[in-house]
């Protein structure tokens, strides 16, 4: 059965009609065209589909769209503001932390939530925080460097 879903995506209030069995990932990509959020394993293991719900990282492939009624959702498309990249996005570019880029949206959003919680993390804490976001290109070294450069703990 379809239901009306009210949510705030990247600062914009939306009202959409969704089916109860659709995941947030499907709604973001297919109904809203926000394809920055990636479908990886689709089973909650790779972290590519991570979005922020009320500022915390959620796996959108394992979240029912109907269950996020009234929530504030941030996807990678909502991170840059006023034509300027978010410091994490700039750091990923500067440090060469992106290769194929598939894991990057999830990685950056997880890092954003993590740094808000722990503004000056150690390298170990950072590794642990992004351990649910798999990257098959970079070997993680440059990703860790990029996150730590934003935190000022470099």
């Amino acid at each position, binding site marked *: *059965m379809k239901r009306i879903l009210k949510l705030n995506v990247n600062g914009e209030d939306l009202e959409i009609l969704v089916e*109860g*069995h659709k995941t947030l990932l499907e709604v973001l990509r297919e109904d809203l065209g926000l394809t920055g959020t990636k479908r990886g394993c689709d089973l*909650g293991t790779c972290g590519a589909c991570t979005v922020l719900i009320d500022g915390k990282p959620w796996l959108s492939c394992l*979240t*029912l769209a109907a269950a996020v009624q009234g929530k504030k959702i941030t996807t990678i498309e909502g991170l840059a503001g006023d034509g300027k990249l978010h410091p994490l996005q700039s750091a990923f570019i500067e440090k060469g932390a992106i290769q194929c880029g598939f894991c990057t949206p999830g990685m950056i959003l997880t890092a954003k939530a993590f740094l808000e919680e722990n503004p000056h993390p150690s390298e170990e804490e950072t590794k642990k925080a992004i*351990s*649910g976001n798999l990257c098959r290109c970079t070997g993680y070294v440059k990703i860790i460097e990029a996150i730590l450069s934003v935190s000022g703990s470099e």
Partner: protein
Amino acid sequence: MRLPKFEYIEPKTLREAIKALSAHPTETLLLAGGTDLLVNMKYGVVKPTTLINLRSIPKLNYILEEKETLRIGSLISLHDLYTSPLIQEKFPILSQAAREVGAYAHQVMGTIGGNLCQGNRCRFYNQSPFWRSVRPPCFKTGGEICHVIRKPKECHSTYCGDMAPVLIALGARIKVIGPQGERIFPLKRLYTQNGKKPLSLRKGEILKEVLVSQSSGKSIYLKWRWRGSIEFPIVSLALYIEKEDNKITLARVVFSGLGEGPLEISEIEKRLLGSTLEDSIIDSLSEQVTKLVSPMRTSIYSPAYKRKMAGILLREGLDKLK
């Protein structure tokens, strides 16, 4: 992978949820964090016709201190659990165990109640329909035979949770609420040790809260896994001991990953009583435990390896609690 269609219900109260659950208990499932259930639904190994989202019920995500007892609402997220100053101060082992579950996002999504009620796992069960299609359905998915032991009408899927062994070691109780009212019982009794139906919850019952009493003993949780994050335990061990005059007066030894439920090893607990944890007893117990447990080949790890690791974890745990 798409989710199959189902009816989705958002109850506003526990009473509403119980009513909906009681109406069609076999085809209705409860949704909390969804990190376990939705994966199993995508795999097609569970096929509910109705999902009840407990997260729509307010006030089930609390941590309250009452006298010597901590009451933890079943919908508190693992992240909220380990960041709670109260938990960090009173039960650091709970905080540590919650950090061991999955990764950051799983901890934000997953709840304590969902973690305690998570499904058993097996290499023949937690697989895609394509992977499973080369064999007849296993007993857990509605077939006749258990592929692990190749016998009918048995299920040896393994319990792989992190929170249950720790909470059982701490002597936690749970409060469940159902059509007949509330009942409180030791968490250990939530688990049936039957892989096909791992939980003892009755028709329409919902786990409402976990009760942990303050105690004077020392505890430790050791998790052995393939990677430092994400993974379920290959074997994990929660130990709790109380001492008087340096002699052990109470011991609880609970493993995860070795049986159809969290596994308390009473033989080891009895032998620990009165001991001062001298090296000889630790040697003897860590040898004995490898013979007392009988894990099945439900993952890529062999039973022999799991038995060996059980001994190694027990040795390490007892050494640290000296």
